[in-house]
C-alpha cells in the first residue's frame, strides 16, 4: 500500500506542504483546502493526512470511492454526489470537506508535498 508517511518530530510547522497541496488541487493557497493539515497546538505538531485505511470505501453510497492497484483510496468525481458520508466515517478525520466545495477530497499519495518539505518530515512509502 502506497501511503504518505509523516515524521512529526522533524516537522518545523512551516506549512509549505499545505500550500503545495492546495495550490496543486485547487489553485488556491489555503490550509483548509489541503489534503495534509498541520496543527501546531501540540509538540511535536499533529500532521493529519489519510493513512489509506479504506474505512470510507464501504460508506460511499455510489461506490465512488475505490482502491487503486497501489492501495491508494481514490474518489471518482463523476460518481461522487457530495453526500459527505465518507467525511463522517473517517476515523482519522483525514477525508476533507471545505465550505463551498461540493465534493470531498483526500490525500492520494502523489508526493508533491514530499518534494517541497524542507525538513524531510514527509515520505512516500510502501506499507
Amino acid at each position: 500500500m502506497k501511503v504518505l508517511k509523516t515524521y512529526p518530530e522533524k516537522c518545523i510547522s512551516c506549512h509549505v506542504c499545505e500550500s503545495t497541496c492546495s495550490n496543486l488541487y485547487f489553485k488556491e493557497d489555503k490550509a483548509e483546502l489541503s489534503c495534509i493539515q498541520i496543527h501546531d497546538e501540540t509538540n511535536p505538531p499533529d500532521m493529519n493526512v489519510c493513512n489509506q485505511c479504506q474505512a470510507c470505501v464501504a460508506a460511499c453510497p455510489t461506490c465512488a470511492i475505490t482502491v487503486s492497484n497501489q492501495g491508494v483510496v481514490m474518489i471518482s468525481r463523476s460518481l461522487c454526489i457530495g453526500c459527505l458520508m465518507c467525511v463522517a466515517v473517517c476515523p482519522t478525520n483525514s477525508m476533507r470537506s471545505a465550505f463551498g466545495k461540493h465534493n470531498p477530497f483526500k490525500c492520494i499519495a502523489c508526493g508533491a508535498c514530499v518534494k517541497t518539505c524542507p525538513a524531510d518530515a514527509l515520505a512516500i512509502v510502501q506499507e
Partner: protein
Amino acid sequence: MQRKVLAEYRYDLKPIVRGYNKRTLYVNVGDKQIKEKPVSDMMIDKFVGGKGFDLYLMWHGVKDNTKWNDPENEICISFGPLCGNTSYPGSGKSIVTTISPLTGIPVDCNVGGHFGPYAKFAGFDALELQGKAEEDVIVYIDGDKGIVQILSAPDEAINSHILAEELHQEFAGEKGNLQHVSVVSTGEAANNVLITCLNFSFWDKRRKVARLKQAGRGGTGTVFRDKGIKALVVKYSGLKVDTNDPVDLPTLQKTGLKLHKEIEAGDDDQCRMHQVGTAHLMEIMNDYDLLPIRNFKYGQMPEAEGLHSREFTALFTQGMADGCWYGCSLSCCKAVDNFKPRTGPYKGQPVCVDGPEYETAAGCGSNIAIWNPKDVVEINFYCDTYGVDTISFGTSVAFAMECYENGILNKERTGGLDLSWGNADAALELLHQMARGEGFGVTVGQGVRRMKKLFVEQYGADPKFLQDIGMEAKGLEYSQYMSKESLAQQGGYTLALKGPQHDEAWLIFMDMVNNHIPTFKDKAEALHYFPMFRTWFGLQGCVNCPGTTSNQPIMPRLMNRPKFPNTCKTTWISTKLSPENPWISMN
C-alpha cells in the same frame, strides 16, 4: 424485447429551480393521454409538495363518489421540494396516494427507493395516473431525453423481485447504468386480494440486485393492477450534489455532515440502525409489554427472545451503505442476502430480501406466534414479491388464527389449513394462495373488516366477539404496537385519517417507554404536534427516519435542527411547546 409504443409524449428538459419543476405529469392509461400540468405559486404556498400535491391532484381528479376501482380513481406519486437532496440524511421519499380498496377513502404511503428523486429530476413534481388500460402496460419516463411513453407489457412476470430486475436491465441500456433506473411494481397477489402494496426499487451496486422498498398500506398495489399497470419505470443519469438547486448548498452540506457525524458517533450505542434497522425495536417492545403477540392479546412473552434483534443482525449483511436514497447515513434498509426460501415457486433459489423491519418482524412474527426469524424472512420475501403489505398480512392472519382458536374457523372452512398459532407453513400457504388467487388465502387477503362480515354471515360468528378481536379501523388493519395502555397511541391510530397507521402519531415510545407525556395534557399536545411534523416530512419529501430514531437519546439532538436549510418556501411548524421540552425544538 420488442415493445409496442402505445403513446408517446415529448417534453422540454429544464433544470429544477429551488426544488421545484413547477409542472406535474398526467398519464391516463385508459385513453392513452399524456400531458403536463403547471404547478402554480398557490399550489406551492398552500400545498408545498409531496402529500400536499398528491391530495390537490386527487381533489381535482376524482369525485366524491369515486370508488377505488373506478377508472377516475388516481394513483398520485409526489416527491416534495426536498426530495432528491444528497446532502442530508433521509431526503429521498415519495408519497403515494390513492382511494384505498380497503377503506374507500384516500390513503397515503411514504416510501423510499430511487423512483421519486429520479422522476422529479426527470422533470416533474408529481405523477398522476388515471384510467384503466385494456392490456397490461408499462409507463416509462426517460428523464435523459425528455420522453414519456406508454408501452405494451404482455410477457413479463408480475412478481416484483423478478420484474424489477428485468426492467432495470432492459431500460438501463449499457451495463453499468443500472443504478440510473428505478421501477415501481407490485405482484401477483395484487390481482386477487386487497391488502397489497407497491414496490419502489433501487439498484444496489454492491449486491448487484434491485432492492425493493414498499409503499405498504391501504392496497395501492390492487389499484395499480386494476388499472392494468405492470410497472412504472424512470431513467435519469444526471444526478449531482446540486441537482435539486438548493438555496445554500454549502450550509446544507455542513448541516448534513453534522448529522452524519452524530449518527456515526451515536448509532452503535443507541438505535443500531446501521446494524439492524428498525428491527432494533423488537426486544424493547417486548420488554415494555408493547409487542403484539397472538393478535394483540399479549404484549410480552418469553418466546419473543427468538425474534430478538441480535437474530436479525446475524442474518443481515453488515458493513454496507444501506440507504434507500443516496446520502442517508442512517442506512436502516437492511437486507438478507442469498436467502433460500423453503416453500413456494422460488423454493431453493437464492434471493435478496429487504428487511424485515420492525413492523414486519412483529406482524409476521410475534403477532402470529412465529418465533423463527428465518420464517419471518421468508414471509417478508413472499409478501414483497407478491405485492402484499406485511402489516395488513400479519394482522389479518392473526385475526384468522384467533378465529381458528375459537372455533369460528376450522379445517373445513380454511380448505384444510391448520391455522393454529405459529404455523408458519400455513401462513406461507395463505400467501401463495393469494398469489394464485385461490383458496382461503383470498379470503384472508380481503382484510379484517371483510372477514368479520363474512364470518358472521357465513359461519354465524358472534359479531360482538369479532368486533373485539378484529384489529382494524376504517377498514385498515392496525400496525404493530400494543396500544391498550397508551391513550396517546390509541389516539394516534384512530385519529389518523387513513386508518390505524403509526406514521402520523408514533407516540408509543414517548408514552410508554420514556414516559415523556405522562399527563392528559401532554398526550393531547403530542397528538397535535407529532402529526404536524410528521406531515411536514411527507410534504417535503423526507423520511421519518430521524423521527424513527426518537426512541433513543439521539433524537432530541437530531430533531433539534430548526436551521435546516430550505430549498423552498417552507411552512415551519409552530408548536405550543415550551423551550424546556427536550423533544421538539422546531421554530
